[in-house]
């Protein structure tokens, strides 16, 4: 009856999980991305929190449902349940905390064990504003990401640097994977999409800028 209540006005719904050690800034990344908030004094997450934001990628409205999981060890048992159905994941570490970077490996293996095989994964070095406390050189993290076929971004939720970019890259990657999958399945779609392909790939940049500026207004 009143479908508006349930917001069906998107083309895709992607579930994305944020994982990483406690205190690396997952919750603030999320709040920065979804509500443009930053809370200096945020408490450690209990269990899981959600937030969604709809963005446009290649002309499609994509609703990203982001699960912000607790990084603390004691919630580890529950967290594995959160991976189910996730099509994307961001492994977050704190560039000033080497242990959080080292643990990325554990997170990665845990993710690979629990999530779908073709889940898109991004590695995020958060707190890039703490450049003077940096414990993880960028190129090392980048290499690590490359070897494991992860997207890589260094972000600062505090300064709102690259946060949008990181999520957008991941969502775009997921979308491309999903749409490619569809193309493989049905030829009818192929013909419709194929000619669009090249033109679309050029357009995102201006779109993105527009989006960003729009966001800034809010």
């Amino acid at each position, binding site marked *: *009856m*009143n479908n508006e209540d349930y917001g069906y006005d998107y083309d895709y719904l992607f579930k994305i999980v944020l994982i990483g050690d406690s205190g690396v800034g997952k919750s603030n990344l999320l709040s920065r991305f979804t509500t443009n908030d930053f809370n*200096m004094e945020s408490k450690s997450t209990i269990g899981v929190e959600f937030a969604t934001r709809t963005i446009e990628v290649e002309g499609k409205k994509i609703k990203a449902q982001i699960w912000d999981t607790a990084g603390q060890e004691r919630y580890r048992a529950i967290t594995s349940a959160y991976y189910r159905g996730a099509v994307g994941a961001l492994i977050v570490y704190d560039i000033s905390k080497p242990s959080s970077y*080292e643990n990325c490996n554990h997170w990665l293996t845990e993710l690979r064990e629990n999530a779908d095989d073709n889940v898109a994964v991004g590695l995020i070095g958060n707190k890039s504003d703490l*450049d003077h*406390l940096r*414990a993880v*050189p960028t190129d090392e993290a980048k290499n*690590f990401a490359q*070897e494991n076929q992860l997207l890589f971004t260094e972000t600062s939720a505090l300064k709102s640097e690259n946060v949008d970019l990181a999520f957008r890259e991941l969502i775009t990657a997921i979308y491309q994977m999903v749409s490619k999958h569809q193309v493989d399945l049905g030829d009818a779609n192929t013909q419709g999409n194929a000619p669009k392909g090249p033109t679309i790939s050029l357009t995102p940049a201006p779109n993105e800028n527009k989006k960003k500026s729009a966001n800034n207004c809010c």
Partner: protein
Amino acid sequence: MSEPSEVEESRRVSTQIMSLSTQLIESIERQSTLEKELNQANKIIEGHGGAMQEYEKLKKNFAELEKRESNKDAQLNKLREELRKQKEARTEADSNADKLNHEVEELTASLFDEANNMVADARKASHATELRNAKLVEQLHERDALLETLNLQLRHLKKVIQTLDDDSMASEQVKTLANASDNANLAASLSKNLSSSHGRQIEAPLGPIFSPNITAVRYDLGLYHEFLKFLAVLPDYQDIKDTASDSKLLRRLVNDEIQPVLKLENASGLGWILKRTLVNLMIEGLVAVEPISGLNEMHQYGYASPMLNQHSKMGGNNSNSLENSPATTSNTSTTTKRNHSRSSSMTKSLNLFNYPSDSPPVALREKCAICGECRDDLVEHARLHILKTQSRADDGTVTVNNTFPLCKYCVLKIRQTCEIFAFLRSLKLGAWKLEKVSLTSVSKGDSKEFSQVSMVNSNEDKPNRDSKKENRKTARKSFMAGMNALNSKNTTVTPEVPVSQAGAPTTNIQWAWIQLCRLRSMLHWTHIGIWNVDDCITSKIGPLVINDGSNNAAGKTTTHDINGSVNKDGSSSNETPTGEAYGEKHSQVPPVPSTPVAASEPANNSNEPDTFDFEAGGDTPIDDQKTKTESPKKEKEHSTPQKPTHSPETIQEEKENINEDNPRSSEVEEKKTEDEKKEKKNSSKISESNENSNSSKELLDNLDKLGEQLKEESGTSEAPQTNGNGSKNVNSNTNRNNGSPSPKKKDVQRHRSIKSVLQSDNESASNTEDQYDDAQEIQ
């Protein structure tokens, strides 16, 4: 006979002749008639002859006609036949048509039936779906409502968990404090390392070197004023360094605190330009310090300074020469241990770093660019980090201009310096949600500005909690200040430990100032020379966030010490720490202060009967209430910061302070006597208390027990204090002799050090400040 006969015969003959004559006449007459008749007949015959002809004609005609007629008859018959046939055909057709019509009718009828049925079916179906739909929507709404309530519940539960966490954390802290004596062993090992004196154990205290209390921070110094000015103009400028024209904050920080520490002018590795610009780069955040490889940081984390086994390192030093050389094989148990733990944790993480994960730290051979350190003997002396100076292009891209090797010592110093500026920049970003200060309000006449500061100060000094709003509304300040003076004691004085709460910051600006003080002191410590700032207690200090009302109060600080021992994880959550702290306090001091305070308070509170009633009525019960029912208000806030510190020391200090305020003196005395009693009791229980402290971990929830333990502990530690209770100088002196106190007195010492040292610190600070001002005047 015969004679008659002749007569007779003549008579007969005459009669016969007469008869015959008559006959004749008659025959003639008949003849004539006959003839006439004949004539007539002839005539008739003659006449009949024409008729005969005519007759003949007619006869012919007749025949002809007859013939024709027969023809016609035949024709007619034929036609009739045809007609009959037609008729037959027609009837047949008719019947067919009828049949068809019938059929059609039937068909249409069935068709309509069918259609009707279908329509009916469809209607039924749609009705059913509609029903179902409606039900589903209803269900959906139900689910939504349910979800909402569940979410609400979840939120509540999470809050509860958080409170529990914070509680347990606080009690953990209490425990660590309580366990200080238990830690004698550990302390021993530490002391071994630090003093490099082997055989003896349990001698030196292993607590923090010194840790001032948050409540002891001063807000009446010139630099704080500059800080306010800095905040006032901050929104107007793009960059924090632009504030230099309006506030001396940056200049003073750089000249008085940073330059003396960094000594950039002596830095051999920097070009002369960089020597001048490096600080500016740091102010702008264009300096990055990073390890050559992430491995290095792992290394440093692994050896956690207290664990550092210097002797063994000394022994194995040679092998430490760096540059990828295989990790010092001989290098001591610590390294191997570390490698051990690392290898277990890094089994899978082969590719995290550019170097194999089991490789030794990667270092540079060049001298440290800042201090010229060039020793290659120990890993700890090596240049494991590089400093990168960057420049930012107009489009925001950052490029690295230069890199310099740094030694551990300088890394810490540079990092702490950058931390200060990063913090100031974060103020610019608004993350601290600072109250608004206007330059005019700050600098309007010396008296006004002073009044602002002093007002804050006075608020702090008295146990009064004025709302933050007062500070925000500068216009009303003077008025409010007056009000404060009047009301100062009314608002929400927690009966227990009034003095300890006195200095608690109430505004985010003050919290920010405390954070700045902390960063400055950390810089100072790096200058003094410590291995690591990470294992120091760094209570997280953050802005007050007003949440759902009840919990708003306490600043997020969990631990109060700027440099302390205790656990570091103190998550910053507001409510929890307060609650916990409260609990601790409660358990610690409960009997002592409650009664006397209640007595003394009424007088002060007379202005505001309501609050007074609440508070006064409480007595001991109040304590319980507060602890149990997260009392929403400021009491918590205030109590938070000091609770951990609540060792007998603070109490004593309070007493001192109280003595100055006459009204409380009675209270103090009461406390003293109580304490002394406890001392006596507890002295015998020292050993018990140690055991108890261990068990206290298990009894996390039971705050009461904890409280008792604490009491005992505090009682035991009281002895040394009573001696020194009088003058601050005494305290400060004792503080400076770090080593002296026995491990059991650690807590006491620490707290004392917090207070007294901070004071002495402030004095010296004010001195330097004065000098600075003087110098400026001279100029």
